[in-house]
């Protein structure tokens, strides 16, 4: 086991920069999720650790060793591919055994280790089958077994669940977490699925356009997103982001709730007063800001501070998403519990915000960076 470090790592393909100056350290035994939409550079970052791509700049280290020029086979990493990349002409047993054979492990030990890995993943009865005879979930487990069998320093997983159906994905997600916590092997897990990231990662590193946006524990990331990208990317639905101006109550343009002197975010049809904890540190910045409000921090209420019209009501069973447009044209989603009264389509409503200071996220309108520190 070992820690993995990226130190100012850049990877360019011709004119395209896939990974841009990435500095990130994954301590020994951690499961770190690299999260981002497709093309954000997360898979490239993983492949840099595996040694499947050459590093343009910076260094990647595994343990104390810089591995930039080390061949993939000598890095002691194991990778699970999105397509599983099982060897179709070999049986399950031979697939799992392959990395051991390549490392010259003697036969007796190979048999024991293959058996143990297969049993860990419930593949004991399938060792004689070819990959084509397996279901998607079984193939996925063979790929995992092949990764764990030689007890590598690092696991690299590239969207290993994306080819599974929804129910199996939830099950396998838990299995991988359990396996990783038992083996305590440093793991880099790439996904575009924020639910996977939130449920699996000890920490999540969010990437966009080749750059690391934020790395933090899931709950931190959710509660204190560092910029509008992270704010919107995490959460389902993502955070509502409304452009507005920071104004002090009583000044021209300000209206609505809050007493005189209260700092508000104003936009057409609304003036949202900020709690003192949020307002004090940002007094003097702006005036153009983006106000971020999680859907669960909002409710429909006659004394709400934001005037809006209901566009769509989405019933999800346990909860309801009410999608509204404000007068300024911003789209705001309100999450209601199942018991709440559902508004009619087109109804004019008012949206109230929780009093909890944690409900308010302020970002600079130009840079998109967070204004209020955690």
């Amino acid at each position: 086991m070992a820690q993995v470090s990226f130190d100012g790592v850049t990877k360019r393909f011709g004119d395209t920069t896939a990974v841009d100056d990435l500095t990130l350290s994954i301590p020994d035994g951690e499961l770190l999720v690299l999260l981002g939409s497709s093309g954000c550079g997360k898979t490239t970052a993983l492949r840099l650790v595996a040694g499947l791509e050459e590093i343009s700049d910076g260094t990647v280290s595994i343990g104390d060793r810089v591995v930039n020029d080390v061949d993939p086979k000598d890095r002691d990493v194991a990778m699970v591919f999105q397509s599983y990349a099982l060897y179709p002409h070999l049986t399950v047993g031979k697939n799992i055994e392959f990395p051991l054979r390549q490392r010259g492990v003697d036969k007796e030990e190979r048999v024991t280790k293959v058996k143990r890995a297969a049993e860990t993943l419930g593949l004991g009865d399938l060792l004689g089958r070819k990959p084509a005879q397996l279901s998607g979930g079984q193939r996925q487990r063979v790929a995992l077994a092949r990764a764990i069998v030689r007890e590598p320093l690092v696991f690299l997983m590239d969207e290993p669940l994306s080819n599974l159906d929804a129910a199996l994905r939830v099950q396998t997600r838990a299995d991988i977490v359990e396996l990783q916590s038992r083996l305590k092997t440093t793991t880099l897990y790439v996904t575009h699925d924020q639910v996977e990231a939130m449920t699996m990662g000890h920490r999540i590193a969010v990437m966009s356009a080749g750059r690391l946006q934020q790395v933090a524990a899931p709950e931190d990331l959710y509660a204190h997103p560092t910029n509008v990208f992270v704010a919107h990317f995490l959460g389902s639905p993502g955070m509502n982001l409304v452009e507005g101006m920071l104004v002090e109550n009583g000044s021209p343009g300000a209206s609505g709730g809050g007493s005189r002197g209260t700092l508000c975010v104003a936009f057409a049809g609304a003036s949202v007063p900020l709690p003192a904890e949020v307002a004090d540190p940002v007094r003097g910045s702006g005036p153009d800001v983006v106000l971020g409000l999680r859907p669960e921090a909002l409710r429909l209420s006659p004394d709400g501070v934001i005037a809006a019209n209901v566009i769509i009501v989405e019933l999800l069973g346990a909860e309801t998403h009410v999608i509204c447009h404000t007068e300024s044209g911003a789209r705001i989603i309100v999450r209601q519990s199942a018991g709440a009264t559902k508004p009619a389509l087109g109804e004019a409503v008012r949206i109230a915000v929780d009093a909890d200071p944690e409900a308010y996220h302020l970002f600079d309108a130009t840079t998109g960076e967070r204004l209020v520190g955690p």
Partner: protein
Amino acid sequence: MTAATGAAAAPKAPARSHGLRSRMRKEAALAYVLLLPALVLFGVFSFYPFLRNFKLMLYETPPVPGLPSHYVGLHQIIPTITSTQFTQSLVTTIVFVILVVPISLLLGLALAVAAHRKLKGMAVYRVIFSSTVVSSVAVASVVFGTLLNPVVGLLPWLGINPTPPALENTTWALPSVALITIWQFLGLSFIIMSAGLQSVPDELLEAARIDGAGSWTRFWRMTVPLLSPTIFFAVVVSTIYAFQAFGAVDILIGNQNAVRLHTNVLIYNILNTLQIESNPGAAAIMATVLFLIILGLTLLQLRFLERRVSYAR
């Protein structure tokens, strides 16, 4: 309710099915009209000669010109296929196939592997490697004939000067003709192998690389097994082609050459039996044997390809 609907619909049904039938008949008629040109061509140049061949097998032509052929049933089959002329020709063809197929396929595979690497300018090499497919056997034979020429050719320039010259030499005549055929097959073999390599997923080779396999192991333990259906296909197709090779022999060796018995491949032998010896019966029997060999190879390939479908990942 159901009964009522049924009763209401019943009178309409015959009319509709009548209309449908007449439309189908019209479509069928159109289909046959469109098929006709192809049917005529195949009929005249393939089906009729093919069936006629079986009839010819049953008639013996006397060795004296001018006498009519007469029906002998199956009696000339055994003497023909056990004749020295035929067995020698068959052995020559098999040697020719053994010379041509493995070498052209191995070279094709080697070139395909070399061209598979993502290097700048590789497209040019791909075009060059596959270009022999579009060269005609006549042109290739003339060019190679010149290269093998004992006076102006490449061999004397290289200091290799067999006596008699390569194309008149009992040892070197067949390998020389095989060389031209190898060169001609190389393009096809390269294209087939390249296509096969494209279908081997990069991820598999990457997985093998991480699992500790060096490039040699990756090639032998991953690429070759995954390529085996392609290799098998290429072997069968080139074997079928090689069994039918004819052009290079005809152009470079011909009928007058002293070595002609050493390059007397089946097709050439059939042609000679038919035209020079005027013995259509024997020629038909040899053609049938060749047909059976090729049929066997084709069936083998079809069976394997069927298995390959279920081999999908």
